[in-house]
């Protein structure tokens, strides 16, 4: 069941009705947990056991860390917790990938490796990362181990964020459980507005652009260079509207239930550097990677560099470069068990490292020296890099990526010319919305339901969705991860 399906609307309406009839906070939380497990079981009921197992281990390890004396014992508990979560993730997500890559080596020895069919539990990358961050926060003393198993279950399994984030940390969610969460009109209104924003992004923008993206990426060699460029642009739009639309819906649903989630996107395509892009794109993942992977790695590397300026570059720049490369390599692998994702992550890591090197070489004061043309050039270069890397992110294999990139740089007139009208309209509207929000301090246009004209506008929006949204249910892109 996905947020944009009628099944979810029925499910959520029933849940709201049941919550409205429930007076006690404990019963409400029980209901939310039951609903979350039902929501998850809708995908595959067997995965519920995994989710419960991860929750149980996380809760026990958290108390082990909190109860152990400082030093090795705490560290052992932490390692146990991290190893369990990463082990689960590795088994379900990467076993097939590892076996497929090891196969040629074993074939040389005349051995055929078995290829077990492992069903990837949806959302596993998100809830395991959420559990890991909780354990590390307790280890670092930033968060006490939560006493209530029920609350911890809700933290891990709460359905708005369960499938594709945002990656909510314990420090963001668990303190909210100190207060009660009856349904409130204000929360419902604000949450509904946010949900509608996400629903529109998904149905009108992402799904429309998907119609264009799919066929061109399936056979790039058949299409004209301009069509390929437009399809890549369309994919950049699709992946943004799909994921940010999902996030808006998740934030909206959580808000309707009385919970607040962190923001995940801040107009990423307005970034003028790749570092700025990662401050605006999938913020909960990038901050997770920064806090739990990059900073410890950078610290470890910097301790091993003895010289002040090896090869004339500051030692901290080297440690940054090494740590960011490894972090983004793993970040790419987190997205999917495929070499295309690994290369995508590595390219971003390389770009971040080069950006840091250039910035350090030029000095911070050099920034903005070239005024508006310089800012535009920075934006254009960043955006071009993003488009090229989105090609690698989208394709199933490297030969297809190569075909697409070759098509994009060839200027021949051959190939199918397909200028998908609805896609062009969606792209144009997306650009205008982006520009509008940039002029309004990064705020997207909001539908304030308290205003008298909001209801006719809402009716017009729903009619537009009914008339123009492509038929068929398209799953969210990030559900695969």
């Amino acid at each position, binding site marked *: 069941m996905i947020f944009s*399906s*009628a*099944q979810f609307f029925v499910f959520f309406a029933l849940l709201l009705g049941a919550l409205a009839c429930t007076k006690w906070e404990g019963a409400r939380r029980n209901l939310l947990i039951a609903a979350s497990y039902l929501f998850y079981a*809708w995908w595959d009921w067997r995965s519920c056991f995994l989710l419960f197992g991860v929750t149980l281990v996380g809760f026990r390890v958290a108390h082990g860390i909190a109860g152990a004396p400082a030093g090795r014992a705490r560290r052992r508990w932490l390692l146990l917790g991290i190893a369990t979560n990463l082990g689960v993730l590795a088994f379900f997500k990467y076993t097939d990938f590892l076996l497929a890559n090891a196969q040629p080596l074993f074939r040389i020895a005349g051995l055929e490796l078995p290829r077990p069919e492992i069903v990837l539990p949806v959302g596993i990358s998100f809830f395991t990362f959420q559990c890991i961050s909780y354990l590390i926060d307790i280890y670092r003393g930033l968060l006490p181990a939560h006493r209530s198993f029920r609350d911890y279950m809700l933290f891990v399994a709460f359905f708005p964020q369960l499938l594709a984030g945002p990656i909510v940390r314990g420090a963001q969610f668990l303190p909210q459980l100190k207060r009660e969460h009856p349904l409130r009109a204000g929360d419902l209104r604000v949450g509904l507005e946010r949900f509608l924003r996400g629903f529109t992004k998904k149905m009108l923008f992402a799904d429309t652009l998907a*119609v264009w993206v799919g*066929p061109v990426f*399936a*056979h790039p060699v*058949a299409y004209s260079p301009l069509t390929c460029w437009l399809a890549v642009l369309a994919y950049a739009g699709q992946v943004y509207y799909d994921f940010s639309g999902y996030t808006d819906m998740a934030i909206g649903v959580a808000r309707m239930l009385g919970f607040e989630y962190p923001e995940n996107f801040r107009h990423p395509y307005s970034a003028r550097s790749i570092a700025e892009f990662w401050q605006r794109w999938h913020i909960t993942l990038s901050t997770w990677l920064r806090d739990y992977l990059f900073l410890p790695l950078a610290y470890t590397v910097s301790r091993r560099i003895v010289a002040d300026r090896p090869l004339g570059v500051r030692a901290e720049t080297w440690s940054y470069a090494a740590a960011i490369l490894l972090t983004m390599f793993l970040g790419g692998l987190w997205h999917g068990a495929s070499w295309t994702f690994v290369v995508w992550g590595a390219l971003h890591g390389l770009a971040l490292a080069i950006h840091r090197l250039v910035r350090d070489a030029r000095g911070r004061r050099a920034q903005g020296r070239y005024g508006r043309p310089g800012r535009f050039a920075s934006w254009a270069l960043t955006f071009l890099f993003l488009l090229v890397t989105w090609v690698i992110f989208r394709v199933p294999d490297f030969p297809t990526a190569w075909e697409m990139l070759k098509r994009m740089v060839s200027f021949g007139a*051959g*190939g*199918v*010319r*397909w*200028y*998908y*009208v*609805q896609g062009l309209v969606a792209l144009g509207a997306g650009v205008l919305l982006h520009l509008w929000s940039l002029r309004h301090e990064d705020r997207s246009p909001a539908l304030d339901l308290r205003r008298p004209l909001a209801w006719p506008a809402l009716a017009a929006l729903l*009619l537009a969705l*009914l*008339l123009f949204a492509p*038929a*068929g*249910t398209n799953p969210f892109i990030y559900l695969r991860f």
Partner: protein
Amino acid sequence: MRYTYVLPPHARIVYSTEGWSVRHTSLMGLLDDELRVPRARVRAVLLGDSFAEALQVTQDADFGSVAEQRMPGLEVVNVGYSGRSPVEYADWLEEYGPRLAPDIVIVELNDSDLGDFFTPAAQARLAAAAAPPAGAPPEGRLARLSRRVLRNSSLVTVAWRRMKLLATDERAQLAKRFHGAGASAAGAAFAAPAADPRLPVLLDALHRRIAAHSPRLVYLYIPGVDYFGPRFDYGHPQIAAFYHAFAARNRVTLVDPLDEIRAEFARTGQPLHGFSNSVMGSGHMNAAGHRVVGERLARAIAEAMR
């Protein structure tokens, strides 16, 4: 947009779902010019569904009109209508054919027609042909009102159709959830009727009814085409093979323009199916496709009239 099952005469229709056109119906409620007076040297009646109706292109660009342009003295009376299935062609011809007195009948067939034999409506029609039913039950006030609203409002019609489409999609999702019917099986399911042993019998029976009212008869197969696969081929080779076997079995002419479509695609590099507001390479034929099919059809009619 379309209204209900029968189009009113002299209606203006703006179609923009796939391709784009502004069309007008004739006095007979057909998406075609008025009948020629005096009668043309050769009058053909074209039976078909949305592929013959050709709302996606302008009226002078559909394959019937192209055939008229290529063969002087030919008049193609296009009675194609979206959603109509071969099951209904024989009914239509038996009822209206004598009034038009065609010299030749063209029956357009495509890949979706075989599945049409097994829809509940088609099954009911086939059963009705075997045993005429008693009078239809009287229509309620609510049904009358909704019919009037649907007849008079394009917006409500489109919204209603979209809601039905979404409901169908949700039903499919639920069926997939509980019965595990894979989406990947959709292509196979589409071609599955071609393997149904009842189908040759049904189609042969229909052919006999159509042939009884046709002095000359030509079947025109409009294939879906796989433009981007490993090799240029029919979209559904099993269905193409089924139609060719049907034609051979009944010794009738089957016009199959795949070779002409292949040659035109090789020449221009542009698919002959699809539009800029739909998916290139799939769906209905665009103007180039109609031109190629129309030219092929004109040759076939000339041969049949010889």
